[in-house]
């Protein structure tokens, strides 16, 4: 397009201003890319089939617990291969800033279900046979420089020992890795049996969630229904969902994240609209006599208006592409950061497309008033101002 040179000339006229405007657009679209990618997790359609793991939690709240006795009954359901369970231990290792998730689990069943956690047979054996045993992800090991055989002190905040003190000690007996999902290496697992026996008596005999491994992943909907039906009229009713759906639910307990994110984005884009709109109007005002020259030499009113709109469009598209590009680059690191609590995230095509859509809308909304002004500009008036 031969008019390209005119657009470039307009943008290059005040390089600093163009640069700053593009920078604020880049930041806005970076925020957009990151927040939308996280938000996708909360809005994804829940698909009960295709996931060979189910999570059974208390029907009314994810912090309520269920009797450990449910385990035997769940195991008896047709299509269930293994049943494990996990609890949220909370607790602090030396400093609150060192936070990482700690889960009491039944060692054998848990590791049998989570085949993706790579652990040597020797370490697995040690975890199963050591009452006070703990295994830690490679990241934790690296982070705190732990060695096998170390005694790891954890200050309990949810769970106290039966004597009323809260200094728990665990023996580090193994490490595991998860190559597919390195974010999972940022947690530790404790032996449930010891945890249950050592905690205060009135708390014993319950678990936070059951994890059910299916023989056939297509059985998910049926098995989930049977489990929930089995405990339907008991004291502790259950709610069974796929692991993915559970993660979604877990995360949305933090508040209506989707809403908060959208509110932030709306504020960001409102600001961006003002910034871009201001840049465009200022730039057009400064170039009044240039625009008059274009009209003088035969550019029609519509052409001049189109040129201004394209200028605005170029500005916004560059900002959006750079912002989304940086998002794409940051995504693997971000995904790793949130993968423990939220699961994997990625920059989806739908996010990119809606980002570009917003860029185009921003360009038109902010470019339209100056473009209209440029279209209506009368050469004789514009040149008189000199």
């Amino acid at each position, binding site marked *: 397009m*031969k008019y390209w040179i005119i657009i470039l*000339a307009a943008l290059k006229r005040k390089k600093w201003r163009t640069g700053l405007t593009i920078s604020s657009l880049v930041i806005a679209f970076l925020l957009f890319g990151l927040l939308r990618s996280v938000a996708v997790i909360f809005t994804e359609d829940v698909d009960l089939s295709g996931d060979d793991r189910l999570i059974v939690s208390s029907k009314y709240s994810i912090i309520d617990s269920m009797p450990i006795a449910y385990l035997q009954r769940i195991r008896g359901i047709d299509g269930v291969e293994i049943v494990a369970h996990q609890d949220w231990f909370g607790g602090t290792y030396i400093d609150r800033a060192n936070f990482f998730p700690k889960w009491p689990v039944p060692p054998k069943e848990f590791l049998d279900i989570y085949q993706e956690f790579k652990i040597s047979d020797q370490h697995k054996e040690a975890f199963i046979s050591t009452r006070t045993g703990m295994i830690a992800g490679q990241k934790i090991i690296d982070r705190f420089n732990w060695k096998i055989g170390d005694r790891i002190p954890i200050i309990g905040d949810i769970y106290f020992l039966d004597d009323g003190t809260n200094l728990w000690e665990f023996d580090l007996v193994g490490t595991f890795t998860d190559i597919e999902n390195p974010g999972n290496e940022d947690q530790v697992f404790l032996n449930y049996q010891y945890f249950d026996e050592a905690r205060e008596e009135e708390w014993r005999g319950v678990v936070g969630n059951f994890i059910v491994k299916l023989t056939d992943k297509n059985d998910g909907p049926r098995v989930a229904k049977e489990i929930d039906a089995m405990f339907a009229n008991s004291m502790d009713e259950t709610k069974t969902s796929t692991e993915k759906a559970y993660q979604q639910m877990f995360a949305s307990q933090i508040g209506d994240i989707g809403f908060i994110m959208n509110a932030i984005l709306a504020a960001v884009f409102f600001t961006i609209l003002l910034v871009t709109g201001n840049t465009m109007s200022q730039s057009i005002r400064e170039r009044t006599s*240039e625009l008059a020259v274009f*009209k*003088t*030499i*035969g550019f029609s*009113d519509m052409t001049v208006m189109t040129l201004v709109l394209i200028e605005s469009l170029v500005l916004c598209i560059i900002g959006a592409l750079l912002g989304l590009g940086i998002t794409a680059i940051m995504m693997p690191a971000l995904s790793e950061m949130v993968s423990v609590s939220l699961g994997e995230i990625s920059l989806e095509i739908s996010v990119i497309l809606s980002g570009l859509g917003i860029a185009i809308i921003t360009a038109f909304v902010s470019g339209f008033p100056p473009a209209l002004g440029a279209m209506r500009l009368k050469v*004789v008036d514009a040149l008189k101002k*000199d």
Partner: protein
Amino acid sequence: MSEILVDVKNLSKEYKRGGETLVVLDDLNLEIPKEDYLALMGPSGSGKSTLLNLIGGLDTPSSGSVSINGERIDQMNSKQLSNWRASNVGFIFQFYNLLPVLTAQKNIELPLLLTNLSGAQRKKHVETALNIVGLADRSGHKPSELSGGQQQRVAIARALVSDPDILVCDEPTGDLDRDTATDILNLLKSLNEDHGKTILMVTHDPAAAESAKRSLHLDKGKLII
């Protein structure tokens, strides 16, 4: 004299402000033959620029007609006027109004972007125009790297590049010192004599008027010989 290029008949231009009507041009008649070089003088506010803009198709009259080469430009709409200006008239103003980030060459090329010429053809036309104004060696310079006189030459080349029949100049030497003004006037003279351009020039400078073939005076919206 030869063929008539510009034919202005009973031309009036008025502005209404509040209840008052300001008559800027009053039932004015003017014929400019081909290859004429006409200087238009007169006191400030007498309507010189207004007349020039009407003849150049930048403005439309309140009444009367303006024909250029037999075409009634006063009856054209804004889009038709734009098209007409692109190929029939070249404008030269007191302030050069060049795009500061573009080189002389790119500034001159702008009017040609509206044509169907190829990049190579446009380049050739630009070179020709640069040669005519004597700036072939400055084609890569930006306006800030040129003197006022050189910038005006670039503006003249831009007006010439689409090869229009008529050049309209509104105080083309108004912002230049005497020597530079003389150079520009000589250039305009040669455009008229050697290249057959018809020129209509508004000026306050008697020396500039002197260099034209003839001059007319405008006073209170009427022409006086």
